[in-house]
């Protein structure tokens, strides 16, 4: 059992081919999840009990089942229906369905973290409810949701590795091919782990920058 650092470095350049695919999946998955969370949180907070129950059911189902099973369901299911979609689209779909539900909960907690006195104060000053939400509640909620959103983003980046199982040639898929061919498994998986650590670190730092920018000095 030896470790060839030279081979680890060379495998980095081969793995880079998969990096593009990982990024091509992770970036839209994060953005679409952040967007899909918005209608969901609006639905949970609405006064229509039917809509609330429906959204709650959806959220509970996707949050309590593995994203891998959802990917299989969509990928193999679409093929069976006669409208086969690619592993990439199926993976993206599953990631957004699942993480959008988590994001909605993050938004809900963020809105709730702004005390109702703030809303009351806005109403007393004569703002319309919509204006109170836009001017008073939202900016404060936005600041509260950045750190949990950052954590969720890291989870999404890591979960993109699952599409390797529905034959999308991203980082983990390439590493596996390489491992099957060369048997230098320690070097390859070391390099692969490094890729994900660098990716998640860059993402966390960016979110941290955003957090600092949004901070109000008081």
């Amino acid at each position, binding site marked *: *059992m030896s470790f060839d650092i030279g081979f680890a470095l060379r495998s980095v350049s081969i793995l880079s081919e998969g990096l593009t695919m990982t990024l091509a999946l992770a970036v839209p998955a994060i953005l679409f999840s952040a967007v899909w969370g918005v209608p969901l949180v609006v639905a949970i907070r609405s006064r229509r009990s039917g809509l609330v129950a429906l959204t709650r059911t959806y959220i*509970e*189902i996707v*949050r*309590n*089942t*593995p*994203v*891998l*099973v*959802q990917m*299989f*369901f969509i990928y*193999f*299911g679409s*093929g*069976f229906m006669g409208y086969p979609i690619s592993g990439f689209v199926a993976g993206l779909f599953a990631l957004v369905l699942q993480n959008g539900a988590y994001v909605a909960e993050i938004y809900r907690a963020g809105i709730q973290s702004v005390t109702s006195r703030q809303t009351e104060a806005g109403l007393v000053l004569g703002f319309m409810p919509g204006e109170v939400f836009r001017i008073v509640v939202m900016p404060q909620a936005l600041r509260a949701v950045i750190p949990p959103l950052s954590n969720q983003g*890291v989870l999404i980046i*890591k*979960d*993109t*590795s*699952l599409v*390797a*199982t529905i034959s999308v040639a991203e980082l*983990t898929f390439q*590493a*596996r091919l390489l*491992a099957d061919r060369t*048997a230098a*498994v*320690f070097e390859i*998986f070391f390099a*692969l*782990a490094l890729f*994900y*650590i660098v990716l*998640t*670190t860059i993402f966390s730092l960016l979110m941290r920058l955003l957090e600092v920018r949004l901070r109000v000095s008081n």
Partner: protein
Amino acid sequence: MDSLIPSLPYLGRGVLMTLYLSAASTALATFVGLVLAMIQLFAWRPVRWAAEILLYLLRGVPLLVLLFAMYYALPYSGFRIEPSTGGIMVIGVYFGAFMAEVFRAAALAVPRGQWEAGRAIGMRTPRIIVDVVLMQALRIAAPPYINTSIMVVKGTSLVAIIGLADVTFIGRQIVERTLAPFEVFGAVALVYLLICYGLSTLGRYAETKANYVH
């Protein structure tokens, strides 16, 4: 639908495997999490830094990558362990990193004044840790602990990729034979839903109990 009935006992074996992996991994993750949280809170500074780095690295890597590393590297490492044991070890240690954060945050959430109050009435440090801090921290930790346990249960589905016969793996095999992806993966999802929904109901109950502190 009728053609699926003969597959049910087969799926049942997968359910048992998933339950076994979930229970064992959660237990191991809890243990690893407690140890790591203790190290982060109380250990000698360099040890604490080492634990910090280990936690950061664990949280930055996908579980699937660690499972693959175990699966491919095990034959070369000279150890002979069961694939299911290997899977439990990887999943347990991986989620142990998440559990550590749960326990650490809960311990820090107990106000400093509680330590001082314990000292003021003449308690010794170990008693303060166990009777005062730990008891309150457990209550605070209960809801996030349940959430992390749900992550563990869902995480066990990844062992299907390295060929362990859990409910996801068997679901895939049944789909290959019967060509009924919706019914079979629906049933597989239902298995996870029942386990996790049960856990999250427990979590909500724990949350109402935990609110008593504030």
